[in-house]
């Protein structure tokens, strides 16, 4: 197959568009993180995220977050069309800074939990979940 000038331009444009796609989702996730932390540095201890290693059905993936001393925990799925999943805000009567729910994942990806501690610091935990059937419909 011979590449003409026009072909080359088309291929280059296609490759650029493909490369941009995950970048855009990632950038949206970065925005969510920045909005939550206000740009503060994020530590990596103090929060635990429990998620299955393999989820056969991306429609209901059980996840658990636990961060003693946190005031709120945000859960993100950076590979989803919208990265936000949910934010737990703990009130004065919360028995433990713990929450468990079921989420949708569109594909194999890393799920991230960011906890905001009472002293204003942040902690992060991530877990890779392999998804067999995506949960966003088509």
């Amino acid at each position, binding site marked *: 197959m011979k590449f003409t000038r026009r072909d080359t331009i088309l291929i280059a444009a296609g490759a650029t568009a493909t490369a941009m796609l995950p970048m855009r989702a990632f950038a949206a996730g970065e925005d969510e993180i920045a909005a939550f932390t206000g740009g503060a540095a994020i530590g990596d201890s103090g929060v635990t995220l429990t998620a299955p290693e393999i989820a056969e059905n991306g*429609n*209901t*993936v059980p996840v658990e977050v636990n961060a003693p001393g946190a005031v709120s925990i945000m859960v993100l*799925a950076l590979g*989803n*069309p*919208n990265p*936000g*999943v*949910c*934010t*737990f*805000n*703990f*009130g*004065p*009567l*919360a*028995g*433990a800074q*713990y*929450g*468990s*729910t*079921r*989420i*949708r*994942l569109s594909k194999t990806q890393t799920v991230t939990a960011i906890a905001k501690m009472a002293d204003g610091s942040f902690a992060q935990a991530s877990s890779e979940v392999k998804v067999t059937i995506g*949960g*966003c*419909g*088509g």
Partner: protein
Amino acid sequence: MAENVTPRVRVPSSAAAGEVITIKTLISHVMESGQRKNSDGTLIPRSIINRFTCDFNGQNVIDVTLEPAISTNPYFEFQAMVPEAGTYTFTWYDDDGSVYTDTKDIAIG
């Protein structure tokens, strides 16, 4: 429109003062994500529950912001401290403006 929305909550009927209990909640709701298309290719508009709160005698226990990535029939499990006998109020806020509530009493003993 969300139809047949039924909240279900499990709270122990009694606890010791100061004890930490586990509360489980489930509400039947389609949680339409706004990503799916129907058979003729048009996007089904988003219709989800966007906020869930639990209060005990007027004091907040947990306040959760939900996004479309929460599964159909949103389930939450969390822990609450019981300072005295009283009533738990659970509230779900729908995108369409509906508010669903459920209450559960707890005794000390």
